């Protein structure tokens, strides 16, 4: 489980491609793509959908007892992939302005990505099967206990940050709809 850095490389490649597209739009228009125009808005919407999906789909699969679609390792890999590419797209959507609630949402996004990296590090310390189950006996009981404690602590921090992020993002979307998209 999570051997190597395949999902990180794939996410890096995807971000490189998106950066290329962003640069092309910048060169063509000679301006930073504004958050409210087609490209800027598009990457914001797609990025946020990726962020939303990475949480909901992964959580559903993780806690699903009846249906076992795909290996947990693949789901975690896609969670990490979407959890990196989504926030990167949202960052480009910001057009490098971090005012008000939108700025707060961006800040929370950055924090949760960093938190995710930390979580990935702790997670990979514990030997697991392909379905994410811990393999007993490879670590000393003490080390395993400590790792589990750290993982639990991390969950307690990571999830609230994510919830705060989603609430602020939803309010930002609602305000954008009210004040800009539906503007007459």
């Amino acid at each position, binding site marked *: 489980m999570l051997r190597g850095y395949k999902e990180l490389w794939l996410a890096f490649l995807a971000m490189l491609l998106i950066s290329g597209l962003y640069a092309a739009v910048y060169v063509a228009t000679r301006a930073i793509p504004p958050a409210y125009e087609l490209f800027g808005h598009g990457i914001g919407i797609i990025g946020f959908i990726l962020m939303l999906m990475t949480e909901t789909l992964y959580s559903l699969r993780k806690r699903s007892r009846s249906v076992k679609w795909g290996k947990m390792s693949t789901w975690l890999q896609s969670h990490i992939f979407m959890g990196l590419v989504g926030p990167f797209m949202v960052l480009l959507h910001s057009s490098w302005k971090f005012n008000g609630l939108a700025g707060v949402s961006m800040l929370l996004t950055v924090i949760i990505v960093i938190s995710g990296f930390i979580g990935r590090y702790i997670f990979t310390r514990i030997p697991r099967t392909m379905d994410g189950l811990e393999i007993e006996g490879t670590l000393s009981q003490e080390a395993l206990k400590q790792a589990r404690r750290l993982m639990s602590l991390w969950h307690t921090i990571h999830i609230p*940050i994510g919830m705060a992020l989603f609430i602020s993002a939803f309010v930002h979307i609602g305000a954008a709809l009210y004040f800009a998209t539906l503007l007459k």
Partner: protein
Amino acid sequence: MKRNRLGCLTGTGLIAALLTALLIAGFAYARGGSIYSPGPLSAQSGEMRGGVTSHAQTGGNCNACHTAPWEQATLADRCAACHTEIAAQMRNVASMHGTLAHNNPQLGCRDCHPEHRGADAKLTELHGADFPHEAVGFSLNGHPFTAAREPFTCQDCHGDDISKFDPVTCTGCHRQIDAAFMAAHALAYGTACLECHDGVDRFGKNFDHNRFPFRIEGKHAGVSCDQCHSSAHRLSDFSVTSQECDSCHKKDDPHDGRFGARCADCHNENGWRPAKFDHNLASFKLEGEHQEVPCDSCHINKVYKGTPTDCYSCHQQQDAHGGQYGRDCAICHDPSSWEHVNFDHNNTQFPLTGAHAGVECQRCHSSGQFTGLSTSCSSCHGDPAFHAGMFGLECASCHTTSNWSAVYKGPHPGIADEGGSGVNHGGGGCRSCHTQTLSTATCTQCHSGNPGGD
């Protein structure tokens, strides 16, 4: 602990969500809608309107300008409520704002005067891209950058007064892009650029001429516009350019007009050759053996127009009749073959009727002469000795072609006319009495020699 289906719905997660929502609500309550603002409002100050001298002074009161989606009023209505003099201009089509509003009813104030660009942003200084330039008759779609590849500013074209424009500006910049093209273009079409160009159509290589009735196909594709539209100086001039071939190709015509002006009857856009000429569209159709004849047999020296269409102009040398039948061969012959003759003697001055119909041609035309022969009977029929020269040579006064054995019914010396029916002396024919010639007669053929007897 019972695990929920979504990992985020933990106790801490829900508390975090609630706290975030409360925090946002608290900020919104304390600071108004400014937390939703994409950027500070302009601090450009002016007269006191609506209780403020600048937009920035409205603070977090979004509703000062923004209306709810379900409200009847719009953002522009809010603008007009404060900026009453601009609202008045927009109702007057003679003013710039009025022209814009009239030509583009969908246009809102914010399309030209966008906000939330910072406190220092000047609302009355337009960025080129923000102004819907097409609403005043010239789109800037084709003008994203100057000749120096920099974004346009209003001053680049208008100088200090945006309501004025000098077309020299166009030529000045475009010479920097392609001096040779501009020189040729100005020579061909003049320098009143706006007469044709509206900023949307570039009329360049990507211009699609095929949306007009005259489609550009074949070799026409490589022709420069001014070769056909040579005298166009405004857009409407282009539409009146003649679509007739000879309006452009008259000077190329190797036939010198002998084939007329409809080049396309024989040629197409892919080249002058190969040409497809359908002689049957001409007044002289090629039928029968004429189809095999080389063009220059009839069209001497390649003169095609005005070629005589009478047979004799070509066939005089071949006239087997030596001109006796006149010059119109087609009376008897058709183009399928000379041997195929359709001669009807009845169309001549001497129709063949009665016994003449079965007579061999040579009997009358014995010397090979077919025209100018006498049509009098005596030219063939001599006066028989029996007539003894009594009736002259007008056979037809007694005979017909269907009844040569005529009976004389005129007066007869010495024999009484019986009942007006002419000579019918006993019902016999002439030869009953005139056994040798009409100048001699015998009675005894019928009557005995005894005058007192019967």
